């Protein structure tokens, strides 16, 4: 079939010229379809937002009272003769892939995604397409996730041991997505689960949609003694901040795909690294692309050069487009890899 440019990459985002709609644009536009609530995908200033129903509370929490229209998964809708539909991406709660179809040509933009069912987000659904626009945050064979039950077993065990030593466990993870995934699998019988303000606010917004154990917000009034032996879920930015003083004595743990690297863990000066990510690992990416039956693959963020080169060796028509998406940030670097060559 003839290759067309149903979607193009311009300075504002991924654009469908025929429908005059942008997907996850990074500059203000008139019509934006938003895959999920992370700030590199859902930005301020668009005139009209369209996203999955379950993502609306997140967008409103983060961006204020924006004009947003909600749609369901697997329900096609038309814009200027182009057929769009959203499909679960399994990345975080409310995350979607966008399917775009015009005259029997199908493109899929994955946004961020993972193929593992985490029990929190609606699981990733494979969508057949001719062209797949995929992220590849962890697109080298060094990344291979363990099943999450194993990791959460380690986390609870770690909490238990710290408690026995009279220490508080401080666990770092993104406030949207990772934090709720952690909360869901912490074992409340071990002790009290405390939260940092950023985590508590986001979780509060999502509680109507999720069954999560009770949490206690750490406020100015909370005494250090009360927290001792408990577990505290905090955003990575809290690490090393004065806010931590109250938690002494503590052990720190970080939940991130980057924790697969010894160097990354040492750089963050975290006592324990738990390898858990809301993105696909290497095999997850390859399997998802294969299952989509796409012939053409466009890589947007992550190890795009390496990953697309390997895809070409496998026979795909693979290329790289620059975007402003960041994937899962390796916090020590202020930016993730932005390949220019």
């Amino acid at each position, binding site marked *: 079939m003839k290759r067309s440019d149903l979607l193009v990459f311009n300075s504002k985002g991924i654009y469908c010229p025929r429908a005059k709609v942008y997907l996850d644009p990074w500059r203000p536009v008139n019509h934006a379809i938003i895959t999920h609530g992370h700030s590199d995908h859902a930005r301020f200033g668009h005139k009209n937002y369209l996203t999955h129903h379950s993502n609306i509370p997140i967008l409103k929490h983060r961006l204020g009272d924006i004009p947003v229209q909600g749609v369901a998964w697997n329900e096609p809708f038309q814009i200027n003769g182009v057929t769009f539909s959203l499909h679960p991406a399994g990345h975080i709660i409310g995350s979607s892939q966008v399917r775009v179809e015009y005259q029997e040509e199908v493109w899929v933009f994955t946004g961020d995604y993972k193929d593992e069912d985490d029990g929190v987000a609606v699981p990733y659904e494979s969508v057949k397409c001719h062209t797949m626009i995929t992220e590849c945050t962890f697109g*080298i*064979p*060094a*990344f*291979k996730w*363990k099943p999450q039950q194993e990791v959460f077993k380690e986390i609870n065990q770690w909490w238990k041991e710290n408690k026995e030593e009279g220490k508080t466990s401080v666990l770092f993870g993104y406030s949207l997505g990772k934090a709720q995934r952690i909360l869901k699998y912490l074992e409340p019988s071990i002790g009290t689960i405390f939260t940092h303000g950023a985590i508590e606010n986001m979780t509060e917004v999502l509680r109507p949609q999720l069954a999560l154990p009770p949490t206690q917000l750490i406020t100015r009034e909370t005494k250090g003694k009360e927290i001792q032996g408990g577990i505290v879920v905090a955003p990575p930015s809290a690490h090393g901040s004065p806010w931590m003083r109250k938690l002494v004595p503590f052990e720190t743990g970080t939940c991130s795909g*980057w924790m*697969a*690297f*010894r*160097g*990354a*863990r*040492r*750089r963050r*000066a975290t*006592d*324990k690294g738990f390898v858990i990510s809301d993105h696909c690992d290497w095999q997850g990416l390859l399997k998802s692309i294969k299952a989509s039956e796409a012939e053409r693959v466009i890589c947007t963020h992550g*190890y795009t050069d*390496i990953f697309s*080169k*390997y895809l070409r*060796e496998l026979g795909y028509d693979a290329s790289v487009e620059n975007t402003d998406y960041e994937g899962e940030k*390796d916090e*020590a*670097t*202020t*930016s993730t*890899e*932005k*390949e*220019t*060559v």
Partner: protein
Amino acid sequence: MKDFAALIEELDATTKTNRKVAALAEYFRQASEADKIWTIAILSHRRPPRPVNTTLLREYATELAAIPLWLFEDSYHIVGDLAESIALVIPNDQMKSDKSLSEILEELILLKAKSELEKKTYVQQMWMQLDYYSRFVFTKLLTGGFRIGISQKLMTKALSQVTEVPEDELAYRLMGDWSPANTSFEELIFGRNEQAYVSKPYPFYLAYALENELEELGDVSEWAFEHKWDGIRGQMICRKGELFIWTRGDELVSDKYPELLHLVNFIPEGTVLDGEILPFIDGEIGTFNDLQTRIGRKTVSKSILKKVPIVFRAYDLLEFEGKDIRQSNYQQRREKLEPLIEEISHPALQLSQRMIFDSWEEVAAERELAREKRSEGLMMKRNDSAYRVGRKKGDWWKWKIDPLTIDAVLTYAMRGHGRRTNLFTDYTFGLWENNEAGKPELVTFAKAYSGLTDKEFAQVDAIIKKTTLERFGPVRSVEPTLVFELAFEGIAFSNRHKSGVAVRFPRILRWRKDKTIADANSLDDLKALIPK
């Protein structure tokens, strides 16, 4: 293997000394005799010779992982550690092997002589039988270089807790020429192995850099001074008609310096000297660069012996007439050392002059002469100081001269290792020089990868990623925009460097955000720093 891997994981997971010591002590309490001695050997860099080269390891790993070699290499550049990269790409996470550390090491020793096919089968099987972390540790044993921040001091501390042998005593026992093949844990810690004793060096006494004002050191008459020579710290041992030279890195280097071995006929039995291995060319101390031409060589040719002759410049006497005299004071030791060197009177054995000054001003003035005298600064030693074990404060200080500096432009960058994995932290710097057409261009003159804070490295990393021009494997050329002030200890002309100049121990002093690349120095500015 699982216990040892767990130990390494625990040591690697913490920067707290107490916790490392506790983990080691716990391990030493539990481990078998054979595992204990092997653990000490590995942590003191006495691993068995590499049975398989890293090229082959890469091939074995890519085959098991079913990925092309280039993909493995690209991943390795990101991960920053070969053993870790291999451990990550091998598709197995179940622990199926219950072999002990010592069993595996003994197998590795035998493996060296086996055929390539046997090697491949063994290594691949092991990889598939070990879980991720054990596989990483196993591969580290194959590739060498176990750098996990375990100093000798830390290990002796832990061993001392377990065995109740004093730390200084243990430090001594752990030194020298022993291996698990010829020494048991009992023998090493409690026994006395005559054979090993003959070549055994004493632990080096190391000085800290001067921290306070000179005047706070008290009366200048209580101190003696020497120049701090820029060679290799070494211990020369003469016992039972044999001569051994150990470096401070606990490496036996006697064979590398045949001109020193000759001294065995001149030095009396039962003598141990502490001193500096130095290049000495035409009656002058050479540069560290000269010494470098000798360090790397396994076989020493006649021409190199002639080109860069070596001397041993002694500054202390640790054993005299077969007796350990480390507890007598520095002045007493020197009073034995000085006539001894004179008596031996051999051109390859020199005395590091002891200097005495009447005021701290004179001391400071002498330090200013360091470059002229080809030293790095001054060593300050209390007259009444014993020769202690390891790095201790108070009795000995080193007072180095300020480094030379130059402003240079960042031209290439490479990803770092260890905690800098995935960050561009290894930089190449250039200085201006006019090319044949008379146009200024940047000529590479040094590499440096230390001196910035983590935050600065992150900022520079971001700029590098945005200003990349070209990639050559792991290396990127970047658009020249960043200027750094580099410091270095020594400088000399060199044919081995494109710039024609070699600098010693270059590192980043600070990021000159206030300067544009046009403000950076030229190669001529650098050459002007070379002592005439």
